[in-house]
């Protein structure tokens, strides 16, 4: 397998956009291509992420149109990936392995989504299509509901008073909104307090509005290439050190929702491939679609023992000045969550962190970063470990 690196990254501001999926993707894609010192004609394939285009804009089969927007050559296959919220992370993993295998030298990976454009009711319905449609959706399951059930199970299993767990979850939201306030491309750039979270409307008991990430519009893209080629193109190649992906069935089959088993398998593969362990990770962008989700993830990664990670944000260990910086971008919680674009936006943040380009939210001296994206109700997990040298 050849060494693979990232040459350039791009993303739109996340939030509410008047632009179409393709227009947003063109902005992100051109930023990534220009930042890589290449031209659209040099791109040999497009790995394109979008989940809900048919419901957002009546648009399926978006990948070839996206290639056309960017002026990619007709010889570059443009293929859509869909893995719910993990869509563009999964696209990235497949792209990186194909570059590693020598099938392509330079490719573009990314995603786009107009989740906010659907409105809350249709967005909630179509997001819920990521659950099992015969055996889960008829119960009225929503994604907040999935993580709400995980939160209740966590409190029960570890015998933590629910009020205490909720306060600790609120601290995750406060931290990630603070980080988002330092990120000019975040959906939300305003600080909040614990009271903001605990006074919010209830969405799915025990999750309140500010425990939940928003529906966002946005796009992101990265140029992936063979490492020597990247070295010729840009000053600071960011290398793909290791990757993992794992899959699980319906939520009820997973039984203990405090342990996301697919994540445990995915991260083990990524650590092994990279030859690193939890102690080596300097900065992490993980799937905080809900506050409890961040707590589950940091335990899966081995940053904390199971049942011991819930107060990490409260005691400041995962903040920008903490020992394990989690979601410096603001995470899904504050940066926003245009589902098909989320994965490559997480990769964009880690690349910029490892290049030292993040200004007020820069994690000093970060050399190894971890990306984590969860799709559906624990059905798809994908992890990418990047390093700066």
């Amino acid at each position, binding site marked *: 397998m050849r060494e693979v690196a990232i040459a350039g990254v791009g993303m739109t501001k996340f939030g509410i956009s008047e632009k179409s999926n393709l227009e947003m993707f063109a902005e992100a894609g051109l930023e990534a291509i220009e930042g890589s010192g290449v031209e659209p004609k040099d791109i040999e394939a497009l790995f394109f992420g979008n989940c809900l285009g048919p419901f957002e804009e009546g648009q399926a089969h978006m990948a070839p149109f996206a290639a056309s927007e960017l002026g990619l050559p007709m010889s570059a296959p443009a293929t859509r990936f869909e893995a719910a919220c993990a869509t563009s992370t999964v696209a990235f993993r497949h792209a990186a392995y194909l570059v590693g295998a020598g099938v392509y030298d330079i490719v573009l990976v990314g995603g786009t989504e107009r989740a906010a454009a659907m409105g809350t009711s249709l967005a909630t319905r179509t997001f819920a299509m990521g659950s099992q449609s015969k055996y889960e959706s008829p119960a009225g399951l929503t994604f907040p509901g999935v993580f709400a059930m995980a939160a209740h199970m966590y409190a029960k299993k570890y015998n933590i008073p629910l009020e205490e767990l909720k306060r600790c979850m609120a601290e995750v939201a406060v931290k990630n909104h603070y980080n988002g306030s330092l990120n000019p491309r975040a959906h939300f750039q305003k600080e909040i307090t614990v009271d903001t979270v605990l006074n919010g409307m209830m969405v799915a008991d025990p999750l309140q509005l500010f425990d939940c990430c928003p529906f966002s519009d946005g796009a992101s893209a990265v140029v992936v290439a063979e490492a020597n080629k990247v070295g010729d193109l840009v000053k600071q190649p960011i290398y793909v050190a290791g990757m993992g992906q794992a899959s699980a069935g319906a939520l009820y*089959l997973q039984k203990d929702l405090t342990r996301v088993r697919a994540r445990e398998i995915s991260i083990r593969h990524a650590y092994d491939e990279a030859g690193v362990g939890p102690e080596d990770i300097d900065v992490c962008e993980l799937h905080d679609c809900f506050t409890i989700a961040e707590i589950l993830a940091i335990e899966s990664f081995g940053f904390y023992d199971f049942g011991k990670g819930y107060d990490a944000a409260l005691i400041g260990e995962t903040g920008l000045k903490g020992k394990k910086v989690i979601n410096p971008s603001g995470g899904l919680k504050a940066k926003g969550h245009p589902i098909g674009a989320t994965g490559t936006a997480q990769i964009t943040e880690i690349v910029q962190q490892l290049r030292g380009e993040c200004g007020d939210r820069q994690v000093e001296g970060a050399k190894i970063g971890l990306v984590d994206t969860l799709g559906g109700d624990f059905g798809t997990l994908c992890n990418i470990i990047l390093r700066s040298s």
Partner: protein
Amino acid sequence: MSYTLTFSQYHEGLKEGKFLGLKCDDCGAYTFPPLGVCSNCGSSSMQVTEIEERGTIRTFTVIRVAPEGMTPPYAIVIVELEQGPWVMGNIVGLNPDQLNIDLIGRNVIMGSQPVKGDMFTREDIRVLTFHVA
């Protein structure tokens, strides 16, 4: 190889008050609702059997922001059946606004009720329901 117990057959069973599942010929585990192979060992050698209704609540939530077409509030539970399978459904017979974490661990009896279909499901689908034993 033909699918042993389809959703359609399972769903017809629910209409008749039967909970059709699968018993594995190799390991003896029950798979409910149905899958292509045994959820425990992966064997495709399974027999259709009726599943017993008793179980215990393992977690729950009350949905207050619902998908299009659903009317909140309503409670969703995950239940461990006495025969082993874990299943998802709705709590009936309790006020959703009066539920708290003490619901976890309560014994329940399984039933089912129809849910109105929408343009995506195209037909009504029965959902598993649970009432406290």
